[in-house]
């Protein structure tokens, strides 16, 4: 990561050193978003949905890619946050920014609970606990229909205008703009966060938890805190999903959602925030494209593609891309 920091810094002078990378990232995300807006003005709903899921993938990257906790229960956090936001909205808190706050708090709390349960273990028991935890939450969500609407979904809530000005519209412009700004801000913060002492320590724990203990780190509490942060990020996604869609269903807490997020993360490249973003965007756009041109065979096509990726880009597309770029650069230098 340090290396990336320095290369980017060269391209963006005049900014104070400690925010260069993050400001660049903020600008790039915003610019990409605006391009998306201009090129696909009628696909904003799709782009908005991609952003909400991207938060889930980012949150998974924090615990899985950066702290080494492999989980198939991350959607539980995303979904509970979405339900919390839906209920808050029904209870009269309709301001989207406030609702975002509700989602973050609910997500962080769920994250802490997941962390306490899941990061206690390692390897296979960890994976199984994460699955069992996710399934328990899903079973409860089905059961507690007065808060979740059960299988019919929680519907009938409508957030008010963003900042009191921007009404949610059918083209999805407000949804998209709101989500994009939140993504740019959160991504910039996260880029900073993973470079921080805490973020670096989590990467250390991922590499070798015993070694981390042997330099005096209390591993378990740190993983729980990391889960809290990750939960907050997932909560942002859940909140955006609830705010933009106006319905929260069992799908948002399901195993399928968790598994899909993990696939997106691995496709993109675990351990890189940008890998998570790329993975999420590419997988969903690919899925949408294949799904609308050839819905009957999309599983075959997606499955085949995943196999090809593991054969030719086993570290994820982001890493493959990064190393290809490095090779390209090297070959230019040597000429």
């Amino acid at each position, binding site marked *: 990561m340090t290396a990336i920091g320095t290369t980017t810094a060269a391209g963006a002078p005049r900014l104070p050193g400690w925010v260069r990378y993050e400001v660049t990232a903020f600008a790039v995300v915003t610019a990409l978003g605006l391009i998306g807006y201009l090129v696909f003005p009628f696909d904003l709903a799709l782009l908005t949905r991609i952003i909400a899921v991207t938060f889930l993938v980012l949150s998974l990257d924090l615990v899985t890619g950066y702290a080494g906790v492999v989980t198939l229960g991350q959607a539980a956090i995303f979904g509970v946050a979405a339900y919390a936001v839906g209920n808050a909205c029904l209870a009269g808190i309709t301001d989207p920014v406030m609702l975002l706050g509700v989602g973050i708090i609910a997500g962080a709390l769920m994250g802490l609970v997941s962390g306490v349960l899941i990061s206690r273990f390692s390897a296979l028991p960890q994976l199984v606990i994460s699955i069992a935890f996710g399934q328990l939450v899903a079973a409860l969500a089905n059961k507690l229909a007065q808060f979740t609407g059960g299988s019919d979904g929680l519907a009938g809530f409508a957030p008010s205008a963003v900042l009191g000005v921007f009404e949610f519209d059918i083209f999805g412009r407000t949804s998209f703009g709101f989500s994009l700004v939140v993504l740019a801000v959160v991504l910039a913060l996260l880029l900073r966060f993973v470079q921080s002492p805490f973020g670096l320590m989590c990467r250390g724990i991922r590499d070798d938890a015993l070694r981390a203990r042997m330099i005096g780190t209390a591993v378990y509490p740190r993983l729980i805190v990391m889960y809290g942060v990750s939960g907050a990020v997932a909560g942002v996604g859940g909140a955006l999903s609830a705010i933009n*869609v106006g*319905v929260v269903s069992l799908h948002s807490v399901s195993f399928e959602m968790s598994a899909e997020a993990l696939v997106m993360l691995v496709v993109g490249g675990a351990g890189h925030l940008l890998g998570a973003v790329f993975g999420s965007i590419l997988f969903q756009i690919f899925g949408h494209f294949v799904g609308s041109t050839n*819905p009957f065979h999309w599983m075959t096509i997606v499955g085949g593609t995943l196999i090809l990726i593991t054969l030719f880009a086993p570290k994820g597309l982001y890493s493959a891309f990064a190393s290809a770029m490095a090779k390209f650069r090297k070959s230019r230098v040597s000429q």
Partner: protein
Amino acid sequence: MHSLGRILGALVASAVVSVAHADTIKVGVIGPMSGPYALFGQNFKWGIDAWVAENGDTVGDHKVEFIFRDEESPDPAKSKALAQELIVKDRVQYLAGTYFTPNAMAAAPLLAQGKVPLVVMNAATSSIVEKSPYIVRTSFTMWQNTVPAAKVAKDMGSDKVAIAVSDYGPGHDARDAFKATFEEMGGEVVEEVNMPLSTTDFGPIMQRIKDSGADTIFTFLPSGPPTLAFVKAYIDNGLKADGIKLLSTGDVVTEPDLPAIGEAGLGILSTYHYAVSHDSPENAAFLEAMKTVGAKPGEVTMTAVAAYDGARLIYEMIEATDGKQDPDTAIEAVKGMSWASPRGPVSIDPQTRHIKQNVYLREVAKEGDTFINKETQTFEAQPDWGLAE
């Protein structure tokens, strides 16, 4: 900044203006084209294709084009994005389909804003039609099909019924509908089992039912592998041999599942709004048309009929509005409309915008080599009992 605004303005304006000039009217159909429920999405398509095959692809001077999108699973976020895309990008004048209730719910708030009516072709929770005045439904509701089942139970002399339903919205609707109706007629419900949606191991549940002393089971499970396992468990655990009767909604014995259930299923009673074997000239013509569009005989389901009738409504709405985007006129035109559907005589209830139709008692039987649901009794012009009260 100015030029950016102009570009956007132009884009939006072109979107709005071109609708008025369109001579092709687009209809967006959202259905499960992939995933475990793909058969039902496929039936949406066959049903619509069958209608087009019989009635052509034009209404007046207007060409009608159906665009299919995949909802895959109950995922409202995805469905809302699809509906939004269909409205703003593909500029459809009508939406149709929606197999799953949450997905229909997600699309509902868009309809008024987009001035687009939605013809629900499956999602069976009663309250959907209340979510927007621009929703009309051509399928069924759990209440609609279940209330007659309770009457059947009473008629055949059942006193003690055990209710076993899948533990989710439609299951709860079926349970409540049966219980309310049956108890009102003086029957007793001795056991209520909410079965986990994912389970295929029904041994313990059969044992529980047996222990309750019920003489009849009423059940609802969504079509798929669990229904097969349920029927098997009913037979293998000796309940059938003990003379405990099995009564269900037609979802448990959809025609594509019958061969898998096999001989063991003979005699299972169900109430439903459509049997593929329904004996009428309309149904014969419908099945013929289905064949011409590629539907395999063993794979026709109720969603094909709902889609076929849904396409009829959409053609009616296009004619009433002369191709203009006017959802109020369109919806007004189909309220109270009645016709002879392949399932029998039907009409659109002007109050609820839900379809009023016959519900039939059927019995699994064998006709030559094919298993069929043989209609034995008719409950005429059933409304959605879930909204009727």
